[in-house]
């Protein structure tokens, strides 16, 4: 590759990231109810870029070029209407006619982050269904296409279309405004945003079914948006930092979780030198920021748990007693079976496997979880193996095998069952 090959000048995902920025600025001018109009302007700007750049000449500042095209198109549209009334209420309050100065101001670099934030709050509107919020966020702020979202979330394109349609209808009907909430409302709305970003991150981090590339994109996107929260005065509260640090710690292990055959490598067997130490460093950096103030959120605890794993030189050297305390704390804040099953695993690593098994059987509605959730079976299988009860272990592993769709997980379980059969023969 020659040094100034034109394609080196383009940042990965430039279009996708610019799409989110342009939509944020344009919806602020047009109003959120004109989201589709903004999407058309963005699409036209990209078409123009592709048509002129592909013959080998890229403008010096591609982002600025795209923004300028979007701005010109926006001005055309606004002039045709001459009144803001049909567009953004933010502007129609102040003025009757389109003025270039106003448009210029919205397109200022300093305003773009602000606009993106407003858009995030609109897309993560608590009155929307969570799945609709996820789809709308990925489409609107992250510039993903319907096909890409469907692929990443392992659903049908039609399903995603339906979710986006439903979300847009809701926004129009309820006249959702692009604003950064204030006061007590801010904390609540921000909590929803955190939930959605964490959901997006976990979709990327956990689902072993979708292809690796798109999953990484999802994680990177969730982190990019979370960074946006941390970079803005209105939203850089401790919980935002805690969530970002948690994502950094988790993402640091992204490369070491699967081997070359896409088999899962468990934490205990992972090559810790392969963990991304730059991300771990960043994790600590943000965790530090998150400790300002006296608010403690689940993200703080989860991040502390992730940090505990990162700090241990080897799996055996992990401070499991401390992890157990953290899980107790987490359970107080977020009482859920998932927290309990994780606590049980940690408990067994402190050498109390029988106690861990007993603890699992105290989980509410365990019978139903065992019938539907692969993980509860897999953990029980694991603990019974450790406790020298191979027959029981085999039953749970087989049930787990039956419940998972993931090829990587299936392979892992089959290996475990095979191991048990060998032990039972001996």
């Amino acid at each position, binding site marked *: *590759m020659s040094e100034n090959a*034109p394609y080196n000048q383009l940042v990965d995902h430039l279009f996708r990231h*610019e799409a989110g920025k342009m939509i944020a600025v344009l919806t602020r001018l047009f109003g959120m109810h004109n989201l589709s109009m903004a999407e*058309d302007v963005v699409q036209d700007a*990209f*078409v123009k870029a592709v048509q*002129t750049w*592909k013959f*080998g*000449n890229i403008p010096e500042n591609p982002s600025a070029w795209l923004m300028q095209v979007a701005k010109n198109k926006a001005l055309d549209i606004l002039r045709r209407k001459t009144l803001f009334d049909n567009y953004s209420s933010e502007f129609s309050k102040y003025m009757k006619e389109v003025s270039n100065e106003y448009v210029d101001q919205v397109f200022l670099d300093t305003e773009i982050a602000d606009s993106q934030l407003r858009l995030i709050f609109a897309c993560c509107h608590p009155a929307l269904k969570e799945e609709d919020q996820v789809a709308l966020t990925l489409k609107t702020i992250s510039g993903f296409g319907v096909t890409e979202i469907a692929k990443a979330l392992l659903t049908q394109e039609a399903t995603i279309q339906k979710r986006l349609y439903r979300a847009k209808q809701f926004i129009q009907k309820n006249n959702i405004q692009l604003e950064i909430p204030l006061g007590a409302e801010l904390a609540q709305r921000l909590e929803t945003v955190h939930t959605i970003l964490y959901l997006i991150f976990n979709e990327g981090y956990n689902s072993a079914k979708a292809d690796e590339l798109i999953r990484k994109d999802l994680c990177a996107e969730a982190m990019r948006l979370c960074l946006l929260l941390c970079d803005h005065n209105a939203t850089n509260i401790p919980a935002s930092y805690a969530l970002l640090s948690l994502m950094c710690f988790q993402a640091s292990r992204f490369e070491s979780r699967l081997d070359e055959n896409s088999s899962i490598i468990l934490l205990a067997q992972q090559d810790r030198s392969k963990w991304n130490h730059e991300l771990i460093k960043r994790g600590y950096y943000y965790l530090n920021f998150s400790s300002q103030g006296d608010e403690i959120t689940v993200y703080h605890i989860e991040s502390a748990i992730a940090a505990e794993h990162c700090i241990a030189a080897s799996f055996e050297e992990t401070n499991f007693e401390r992890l157990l305390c953290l899980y107790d704390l987490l359970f107080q804040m977020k009482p859920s079976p998932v927290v309990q099953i994780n606590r049980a695993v940690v408990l067994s690593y402190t050498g109390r496997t029988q106690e861990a098994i007993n603890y699992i059987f105290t989980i509410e509605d365990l019978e139903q979880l065992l019938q539907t959730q692969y993980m509860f079976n897999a953990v029980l299988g694991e603990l019974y193996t450790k406790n020298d009860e191979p027959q029981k272990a085999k039953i749970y592993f087989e049930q787990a095998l039956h419940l998972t769709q993931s090829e990587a997980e299936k392979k892992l379980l089959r290996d475990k069952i095979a191991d048990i059969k060998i032990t039972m023969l001996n």
Partner: protein
Amino acid sequence: MKDFMFIFRGRTDRPEMTPQEMQNNMQQWFAWIDKLKKKNIYVAGEALMQPGKVVKGEQPVITDGPFTESKEIVGGFFVVKANSFEEALELAKDCPDLPRGGTVEVREVMKF
């Protein structure tokens, strides 16, 4: 070696492509250009502004067009070196827009 002009025609309507797909398409073009440059056979290439105007008639009349809505609009051109027409045609087959309905017209540049 002779010079050949590649004239690229394609659609300009709004495609059903995601931002990433559009960027990928563009990067395929860059990779193609780079390949031609490395072989030292890429002479020039430019995009044409849209829309154009047409001057026509004895008493020249200027009309709009060709319209960007039309299916076949010239988007740009390359000048590429090749030993023969056949070789030029082979090179043109690498055009990334062929699967999307784009066309390449290959013409030898006349030299006296």
